């Protein structure tokens, strides 16, 4: 009889442990950050950085991350992901790296170590854009119109970033509005 009760108890414990496992799997600690988490962390860093060169470095890091995502998705032939990250890369390059380098270009004295860093960051931005562009052009899905458009946009972004880092290019309207505040 004792053995039978133990057997029943064991079976019940087994069922309980199964529940415990299943609920634990669902409530596992999320493996964030992911892209939103990365962007939020970068936003907090940007909100503390007064030096445009520091902000340019943060944006350059983001551009590098976006470019790696473009390369990975292009390699896997994931058109939608590649074009989405291509769009983020374009924005980060022009409005992030390019714009902060333009500010830095205006603030730092010529021939100073800071002006050399402006040049270096500009070259890095071109290289990051070039890697993304190349991966899209050699992707298995390269013939898709969305991929071709993404390549063109990254090429344009590369040019615009170079211009802005040399103090050229137009400031976007929304930014002028923000500056008035």
């Amino acid at each position, binding site marked *: *009889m004792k053995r*039978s*009760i133990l*057997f*029943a*108890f*064991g*079976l*019940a414990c*087994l*069922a*309980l442990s199964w*529940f415990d496992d299943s609920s634990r799997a*669902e*409530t*596992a*600690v*999320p493996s*964030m*950050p*992911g*892209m*939103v*988490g990365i*962007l*939020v*962390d*970068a*936003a*907090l860093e*940007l*909100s*503390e*950085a*007064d030096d*445009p060169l520091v*902000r340019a470095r*943060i*944006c350059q890091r*983001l551009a590098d991350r976006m470019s790696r995502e473009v390369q990975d998705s292009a390699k896997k032939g994931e058109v939608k992901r590649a074009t*989405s990250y291509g*769009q*983020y890369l374009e*924005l*980060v390059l022009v*409005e*992030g790296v390019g*714009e*902060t380098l333009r*500010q830095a270009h205006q603030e730092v004295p010529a021939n100073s170590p800071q002006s050399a860093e402006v040049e270096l960051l500009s070259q890095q931005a071109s290289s990051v854009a070039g890697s993304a562009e190349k991966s899209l052009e050699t992707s298995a899905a390269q013939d898709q119109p969305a991929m071709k458009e993404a390549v063109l946009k990254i090429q344009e972004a590369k040019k615009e970033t170079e211009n802005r880092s040399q103090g050229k290019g137009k400031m976007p309207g929304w*930014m002028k509005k*923000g*500056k008035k*505040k």
Partner: protein
Amino acid sequence: MKCADCRQRLLLAENPSDADPECAGHLSLCAACKAWHGQLLTIERHVPLLPVPASKGDDQLKRLFLLPLEPAPAPAPTRPIRRVRKYFMAALALGVLIATGLILGDWAVRRMSPATKMNDVLVQQPVKPVALEEDHELVLKVLDCNLELAQTKNPRTRVEILGKLADVLSGASASLVKAGKPTELRAVAELYGKVIRDGILGRAKVLEDGRETLLEAAQKLELHASASTALAKTVGAELAEPMRQIALASREGARGLRDLSKEGAE
């Protein structure tokens, strides 16, 4: 006001029949939203009337455990093997019964949880489910805040942009509740807390002569707190906990901002 904003506000409202003036204005102009609002009110009215079968699972389980053990009958001199087999079969049946009860009980609890019920209702609503990693619009909105922050060093503008970022995350949390995604929701709640504590409050401390900005930001956070608290009441524990976390962070943030604005005024 955009249709999506109006609909989101109505979904977050404690009483959707009492739309705020901005929403009411939009509803009077937009026939699609007006029809959608009518549908929402119908659902709101019907949710409490949904038949929910009473569960007897708990009582049955308790009864099984609380049953006094019957004294074992005196062993009969004949056929002992058959008796042992009888006890074994009874124990096996009891074990299977307990295991089945637990499985069915858990299934019933999940099935009848408010979150599931709410999701069932919202399946018919035009709510776009959010997959945090893949949500293009969410990434674009957060990225937009980053780019604005990259281009300014004005402390007041920074507090305003961080407030916008908190808005974006608060909106994402509401979408995740509707999509029933507790894992992503917990992650967003954590990020939201970070933006309030390390971002808004951190930047507000170095803000000079920004009383108005601080009070505006505090008001926004108070709105987030009440919306999150209200939403937490309508869902199951798994989704409610991160929403309460967001409400707490919002309240703490609003209190901190009000204190800072007082300090500035003195």
